[in-house]
């Protein structure tokens, strides 16, 4: 191997190793030792930036060890519109997402306990097609609500989604009504429903089940809003401040009950549920 190729290869593998060992915080740009970051629940120890985590990581840090039992894990996307866009068929994107994440849909649902209290939980995973709300996602969130309804168990939904899934067209839009219909039945039977909005919760997900919790909780700095920043800027022809559509902005305008650090979420959820007096 010529020396310059060898040197390049060594440099590449060194960079790769560095990438594996260090993480650059997206908020303060600090380089954080990856293991420290993970041990800190994927939160930057320097500035409290909350990085995105997978559905199973969330379940691991929220539910009591060994209590999670997944339900409806085989539900996965179909391709009702035979959708093909500029980058190829929807089917291929779904396959790639399944390979990449090991998930079948953008949400994981199941049963478990939080500090001993039985609950039903749905956790969205942003890695799967941006956490978008497809028919399978809506079905799983509704079935979770139905399980809560049938067994009178509290329902907790963690959102992480860019909104509706365009590739499923109008059927994606209808998932907003479908999931809300499930939540409406919980209200009728007076079953607790807690919504946890994580980064990001926007579009059709913010405009459906995520915003109608008995208690709406968000993680610090999470992007939460209805319309996209660029669309709004084009509409009103003015630049929006960085703080626009952050959890803090939404709290200030009255649509969240609280912002809670990831490390305190389990304790907070457990405490809120302890006030359910039925």
């Amino acid at each position, binding site marked *: 191997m010529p020396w310059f190729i060898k040197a390049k290869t060594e440099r590449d593998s060194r960079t790769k190793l560095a990438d594996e060992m260090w993480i650059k915080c997206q908020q303060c740009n600090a380089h954080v030792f990856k293991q420290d970051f993970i041990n800190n629940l994927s939160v930057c120890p320097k500035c409290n930036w909350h990085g995105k985590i997978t559905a199973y990581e969330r379940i691991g840090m929220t539910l009591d060890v060994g209590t999670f039992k997944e339900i*409806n894990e*085989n*539900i*996965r*996307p*179909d391709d*009702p*519109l035979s959708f093909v*866009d*500029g*980058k190829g068929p929807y089917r291929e994107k779904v396959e790639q997402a399944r390979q990449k994440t090991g998930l079948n*849909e953008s949400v994981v649902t199941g049963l478990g306990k939080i500090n001993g209290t039985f609950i039903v939980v749905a956790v969205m995973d942003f890695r799967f097609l941006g956490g978008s709300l*497809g*028919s*399978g996602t*809506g*079905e799983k969130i509704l079935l979770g609500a139905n399980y809560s309804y049938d067994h009178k168990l509290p329902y907790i939904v963690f959102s992480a989604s860019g909104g*509706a*899934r*365009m590739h*499923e*067209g*109008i*059927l*994606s*839009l*209808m*998932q*907003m*009504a479908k999931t*809300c*219909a499930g*939540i*409406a*039945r919980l*209200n*009728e039977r007076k079953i607790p429903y807690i919504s946890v909005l994580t980064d990001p919760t926007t*579009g*059709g997900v*913010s*405009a*459906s*089940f*995520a*915003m*109608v919790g008995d208690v709406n909780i968000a993680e610090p700095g999470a992007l*939460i*809003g*209805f*319309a*996209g920043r660029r*669309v*709004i800027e084009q*509409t*009103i022809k*003015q630049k*929006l401040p960085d703080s*626009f*559509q952050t959890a803090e902005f939404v709290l200030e305008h009255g*649509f969240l009950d609280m912002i809670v650090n990831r490390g305190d979420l389990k304790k907070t959820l457990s405490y809120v549920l302890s006030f359910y007096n039925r």
Partner: protein
Amino acid sequence: MERELDFERPIADMEKAVQKLKNLTGDQKSDLSDQLDELQKKLIERKKEIYDNLTPWQTVQVARHPQRPVVHDYIDLVFSDFIELHGDRCFGDDRALIGGFALIGSEKVMLIGHAKGHSVEDNVNRNFGMARPEGYRKALRLMHLAEKYNLPVVTFIDTMGAYPGLDAEERGQAEAIARNLTEMARLEVPIIAVVTGEGGSGGALGIGVGDAILMLSHSIYSVISPEGCASILWRDASYNAHAAEALKLTSKSLLELGVIDEIIAEPPGGAHADPQRTADEVKTVILKYIKKISSRSPSKLVSKRFEKFAAMGKFTS
């Protein structure tokens, strides 16, 4: 016709020819009356042919036609004795989304609808039918009033979408729509939703959770505008027509996908060619569904509505 679309040009040309013949006087006129009849017959056929074969993107243009009937036209042509009710009792009154008591035939209903206009001035005043949170909250207030007074709710959907503005975000656009979806799911009076023009995403659905969902034949209903979809998935807004095709946003597609209950036929040449005839058809179909759905008990009504929306979507398991 004030503004014709590209594919309407042959129709406009024929209409001009018909008008020319009609303007003739005396002997000339009677000599050519056969020709006039023939031309008028052909005109109807041609209109029908063009409008039966619209591409999805052409349908989008018809759905947005500036002369297409808007909610105030339907208030005049379908309903009588409309009394508008204003305000959300919280922030203000949204002129982009209106509502009030109305009679359709002899049926008393609560009418709610997005309000586009025909002129630019009218549209600016109505924010082009793009509602803010106070619009959705007013709509919900009126639906609860309808429930209290035991009136069916009839909604007319015609919006590009909920208004994407700073103030709308500050006042909770997402929450307002989410609340409507949740509350409409359990409302104990019939809800009949009619998409008359553009059914634009969450802004449409925010008054669209119906026991019956109807669409005018050349209206559209979509999760995102073709332009928005093209710029995101094709990274090029000029792929509008591709996106319109891919999104399956026509009434025919929605019927096939099981989202809507019935298509309301528009006259040849589209709703804007004959608003009265369109309105008559709208009225007939709405009355049919009011009759059908009003026989359900409140608990049956709500459980059927839940089942309807629970069944929406297509997935593998």
